[in-house]
């Protein structure tokens, strides 16, 4: 790249220069001295600008936007700063020497000449070379130094990363109350039942670092998990999350911290210190709370599993007479069964179709189990030839429950009889 450098222009300055030029060419628009065709006019502007040595071999500093890598091999983009912008083109042969790939948002120094694209009367900068702007270089060096220092102190140690609580009851959020990040987080937390404690912070500009650190400290003892987040922005906007005091505040936080700064590709020191790094605020919220639908489904399944376990327990006991002793329990079971059916109806109304399908199987099993329950009820058992013996003291389950000569009541499938005990023999084989 040639060293002939006529001075570094800020874009705004360059524009002012162009504007000044124009007025010098056409000092008085009201005096009709010559009528141009548009083509002639643009031709004249082109001549004028392109012959001005001050608009050649210049450096311009700005940020790339609207970058297009055309299939012709030419690259087009807009170079802009805070107040102004200019079209730029980098032709294929110049672009071939580029040491890096251009992308939107990059801060660059463009070397080249001002030119006019006549068909559109557009002033543009024909780039002959592009360098990454070194303006950020010093800060990046600083960043590396801070990173090294904190790593040396063990702030990034994996062994100190804490697990996130499964069901947090208090969720602390450090961010700007006005930001889109907060809206995203609140939307995802949605109906999950937790207290949300917002600790407002200024997340960019002067004083942001102190503000964020303070907001994190303010949550001490008040949250089960803390989300430190901010929406996307320029590297400068996100820079406060690279600061040492924010890193230390996260490190000292008494609950696990999820960091979510900018977009997926933005990684800051805060992300290294946090217990978990989320690519975006939305993702952070998803990590902080369980999936409420999955939880609902789990509850329904727990109910079904309990019912199933109960029924199969009953099935195992179906031939046991001692079940009759608990005829009260059998009634309770009937009541529970019908209650459970209603409950399943109620629950299934609230479930999505996919979940309903899962439930159908459980339903069938419950119905089956209910049929079996009916089969082991006292009446069904009596019909199979069993009988219930009762003394004034209650059910007769063992020979010791009665004494010879005593009268017992024997309940049959149909009717009952009174009988006198002749003999009590505990040694008889258990026929149950």
């Amino acid at each position, binding site marked *: 790249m040639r060293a002939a450098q006529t001075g570094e222009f800020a874009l705004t300055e360059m524009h002012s220069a162009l504007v000044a030029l124009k007025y010098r060419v056409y000092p008085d628009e009201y005096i009709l001295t010559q009528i141009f065709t548009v083509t002639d006019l643009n031709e004249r502007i082109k001549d004028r600008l392109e012959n001005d040595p001050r608009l050649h071999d210049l450096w311009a500093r700005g940020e790339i936007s609207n970058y297009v890598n055309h299939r012709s091999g030419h690259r087009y983009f807009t170079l802009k700063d805070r107040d102004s912008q200019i079209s730029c083109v980098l032709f294929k042969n110049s672009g071939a020497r580029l040491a890096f790939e251009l992308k939107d948002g990059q801060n660059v120094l463009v070397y080249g000449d001002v030119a006019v694209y006549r068909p559109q009367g557009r002033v543009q900068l024909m780039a002959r070379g592009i360098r990454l702007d070194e303006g950020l270089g010093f800060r990046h060096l600083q960043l590396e130094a801070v990173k090294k220092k904190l790593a040396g102190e063990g702030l990034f140690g994996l062994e100190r990363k804490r697990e996130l609580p499964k069901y947090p009851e208090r969720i602390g959020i450090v961010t700007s109350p006005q930001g889109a990040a907060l809206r995203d987080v609140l939307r995802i937390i949605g109906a999950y*039942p937790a207290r949300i404690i*917002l600790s407002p912070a200024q997340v960019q500009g002067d004083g942001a670092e102190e503000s964020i650190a303070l907001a994190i400290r*303010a949550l001490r003892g008040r949250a089960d998990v803390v989300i430190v987040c901010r929406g996307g922005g320029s590297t400068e906007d996100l820079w406060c999350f690279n600061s040492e005091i924010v890193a230390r505040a996260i490190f000292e936080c008494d609950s696990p911290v999820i960091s979510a700064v900018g977009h997926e590709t933005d990684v800051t020191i805060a992300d290294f210190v946090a217990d978990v790094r989320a690519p975006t605020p939305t993702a952070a919220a998803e990590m902080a709370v369980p999936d409420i639908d999955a939880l609902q489904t789990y509850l329904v399944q727990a109910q079904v*599993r*309990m019912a199933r376990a109960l029924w*199969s327990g009953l099935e195992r006991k179906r031939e046991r007479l001692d079940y009759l002793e608990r005829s009260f329990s059998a009634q309770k079971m009937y009541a529970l069964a019908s209650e459970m059916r209603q409950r399943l109806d109620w629950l299934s109304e609230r479930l999505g179709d996919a979940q309903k399908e899962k439930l159908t199987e459980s339903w069938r099993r419950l119905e089956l189990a209910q049929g079996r329950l009916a089969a082991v009820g006292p009446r069904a058992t009596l019909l199979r030839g069993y009988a219930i013996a009762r003394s004034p003291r209650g059910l007769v389950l063992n020979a010791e429950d009665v004494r010879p000569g005593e009268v017992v009541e024997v309940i049959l499938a149909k009717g009952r009889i009174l009988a006198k005990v002749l003999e009590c023999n505990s040694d008889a084989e258990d026929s149950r």
Partner: protein
Amino acid sequence: MSEKEMGLEEALDDLERIVEELEDGKKSLEESLDLYEKGTKLVRLCQARLESAEQRIESLTGELPPNLD
């Protein structure tokens, strides 16, 4: 700890233990019924928790986001 104070996590842990105990099938019928009833209460408790959820936001500085839905 009363049920009201019981956290979601604790309730879900208890529930899981009860379901497993029931499925284990080693309890007597009475105990199983008790477990079943306890478990059902926990399911209801959790469901009530999940449904009671109106988002509650507090701000440490009093500054809240504009236009909360």
